[in-house]
């Protein structure tokens, strides 16, 4: 795809390049490939749950493997690499530097992803993306489980290397004329999320090693039969992965900060409050990890502490929503495809946050925990907010990457169908959870409400599936045959697009 189609280069030249736009392109294509692979698994899950009994999947083990790999793939192999792609393309430009700070490290961080993805997909583990011990130690079939552990280990290292690179690029390589208070919010979002990665990931990295040695039988950290404690794993896991939620969401918010002012034809309402909210989120994000664990038998005091920590993150998220709405207020808004995705994403972000407040309230959590409510809730974040922001930004950066325009009608159709589908799937799943359906189940008893809700969700998922086919066709066709973009101002909204002189083949 892309500029390479205008000035073809042999593929190995891109693969072995360390230039930031080449690495960005590799990240982009890899992440989109995994988006479609993980999405296909989601469709299999929804088709299976359309009715009670076995539909298209013959046994529960296969089903368990499918949802495990679905979650692992979309979080670690789509969302994170996609953000890295955007960061690679735009962070150096935004801080006015020729490349990332460490180009070779950058390429190494990318090249860790394909082998890790291969380990995860060839293994096809079944112990959920949480790798729940002691199940993962004493029951989960190897070598799938071990391959998953090694895959995640590699991805963790890749994330840390990427984070170091972003931090150094932003703080040390920015143009001397530019103060940190002038760096665009998208770059700020990468700075915040990279700092979170550096603090959060080592904990899980340690937990993974302990899980592995437990599986090998040489230790018993999380194995009660050897005096270990599975709850310790829960703490280590969520200490990494609750902040990780912000690692995923903050770059997506940053992408919206690029799109919203541009298409509202107004400057951002408050640059300072955007920075403030990023920094605040990345700090309070560390105070809420055990809200995933109310039902593990925590004391009243512990539950209270983590409820307060969770609620404390809400005002920071709310600041972003205010900033977006205030920016659009009185703006001359042009609802091109990227803007539609961004605005849809904000609406779903708000809904997801509201549901999150209900989860955090202790007594309500016992109603929703491990039910389909939770599935609906976090998918409103990962799909409704993060994927919407990311896909919106993909449309937005399309002319930059390819020098061509995507098909606007298909882009809008993609949005409308995805939005309807997302609401049908994930709002319905909230209600399904209130009816008591547990998550991660292959089959369910024929309770009429459960059947109805599952069918609405499955139809919604199929609508998203069709919209993704339209998306794929649009991307492939337009990157080769789309009409040439006006790289000065491809969307006709005035102002400056990204330094159009950069739109050329890297010459080295």
């Amino acid at each position, binding site marked *: 795809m892309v500029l390479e189609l205008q000035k073809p280069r042999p593929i190995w030249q891109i693969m072995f390049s360390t230039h930031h736009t080449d690495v960005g392109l590799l990240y982009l294509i890899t992440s989109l490939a995994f988006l479609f692979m993980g999405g296909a698994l989601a469709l299999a899950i929804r088709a299976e749950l359309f009715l009670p009994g076995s539909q298209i999947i013959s046994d529960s083990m296969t089903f*368990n493997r499918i949802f495990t790999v679905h979650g692992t793939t979309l979080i670690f192999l789509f969302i994170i690499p996609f953000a890295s792609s955007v960061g690679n393309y735009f962070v150096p430009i935004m801080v006015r530097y020729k490349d990332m700070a460490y180009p070779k490290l950058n390429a190494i961080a990318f090249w860790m992803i394909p082998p890790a993805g291969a380990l995860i997909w060839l293994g096809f583990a079944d112990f959920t993306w949480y790798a729940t011990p002691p199940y993962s130690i004493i*029951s989960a079939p190897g070598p799938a489980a071990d391959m998953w552990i090694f895959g995640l280990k590699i991805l963790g290292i890749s994330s840390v290397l990427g984070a170091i690179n972003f931090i150094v690029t932003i703080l040390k390589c920015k143009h001397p004329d530019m103060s940190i208070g002038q760096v665009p919010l998208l770059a700020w979002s990468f700075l915040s999320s990279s700092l979170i990665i550096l603090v959060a990931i080592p904990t899980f990295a340690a937990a993974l090693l302990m899980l592995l040695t437990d599986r090998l039988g040489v230790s018993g950290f999380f194995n009660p039969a050897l005096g270990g404690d599975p709850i310790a794993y829960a703490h280590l896991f969520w200490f990494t992965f609750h902040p990780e939620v912000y690692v995923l969401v903050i770059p997506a918010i940053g992408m919206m900060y690029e799109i919203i002012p541009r298409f509202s034809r107004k400057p951002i309402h*408050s640059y300072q409050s955007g920075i403030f909210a990023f920094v605040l989120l990345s700090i309070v994000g560390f105070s809420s990890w055990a809200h995933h664990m109310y039902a593990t038998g925590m004391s*009243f005091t512990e539950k209270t502490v983590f409820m307060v920590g969770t609620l*404390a993150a*809400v005002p920071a998220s709310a600041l972003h929503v*205010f900033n977006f709405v205030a920016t659009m207020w009185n703006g001359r808004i042009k609802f091109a495809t990227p803007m539609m995705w961004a605005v849809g994403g904000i609406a779903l972000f708000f809904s997801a946050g509201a549901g999150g407040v209900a989860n955090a*309230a202790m007594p309500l959590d016992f109603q929703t925990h491990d039910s389909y409510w939770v599935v609906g809730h976090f998918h409103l974040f990962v799909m409704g907010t993060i994927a919407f922001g990311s896909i919106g930004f993909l449309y937005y950066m399309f002319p930059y990457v390819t020098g061509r325009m995507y098909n606007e009608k298909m882009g809008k159709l993609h949005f409308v169908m995805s939005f309807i589908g997302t609401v049908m799937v994930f709002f319905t799943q909230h209600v399904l959870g209130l009816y008591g359906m547990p998550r991660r189940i292959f089959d369910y008893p024929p309770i009429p409400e459960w059947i109805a809700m599952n069918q609405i969700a499955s139809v919604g998922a199929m609508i998203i599936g069709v919209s993704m086919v339209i998306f794929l066709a649009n991307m492939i066709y337009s990157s080769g045959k789309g009409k040439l973009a006006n790289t000065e101002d491809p969307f006709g909204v005035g102002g400056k697009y990204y330094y159009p002189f950069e739109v050329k083949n890297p010459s080295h």
Partner: protein
Amino acid sequence: MSGHSSWPEWIYVGVVIALMVWVGAEAWEAERLVDHVPADAEVIKVTGQQWFWSFEHEDGTKEIGELHVKAGKAYKFEIESKDVNHSFNIHDYVVLMDAVPGRVNTVWFAPTEVGQHDIQCREYCGLIHYNMRGTLYVEDPSS
């Protein structure tokens, strides 16, 4: 970069914080009541294992997959697991507590009406997790 920290933003943030304080206070109050086990609650030992629930009443009666209790009485569940994590759930009564090997977790409830309710496992526990189900029978205390 214009108009930062304008007054509508302050009001908005104030409202959000006030809402969170309200939610937190209500939740705290409700959870404090829920956490308090009545002194006269009868103990039922609940054991989760792949992939069924078994119960032991105070008088030594044992049941598997079924649980019989009397309406109008309070019961305290002491939940354990023999193998991997499970989660004991009677959704209709918002009874939900993980069964973790090596620990005893407690939760209580007081059924009020005669009826039949589903018991299920809400924590992933492997192959038959989806069918780790049971039935709760709430019976008339006079029978």
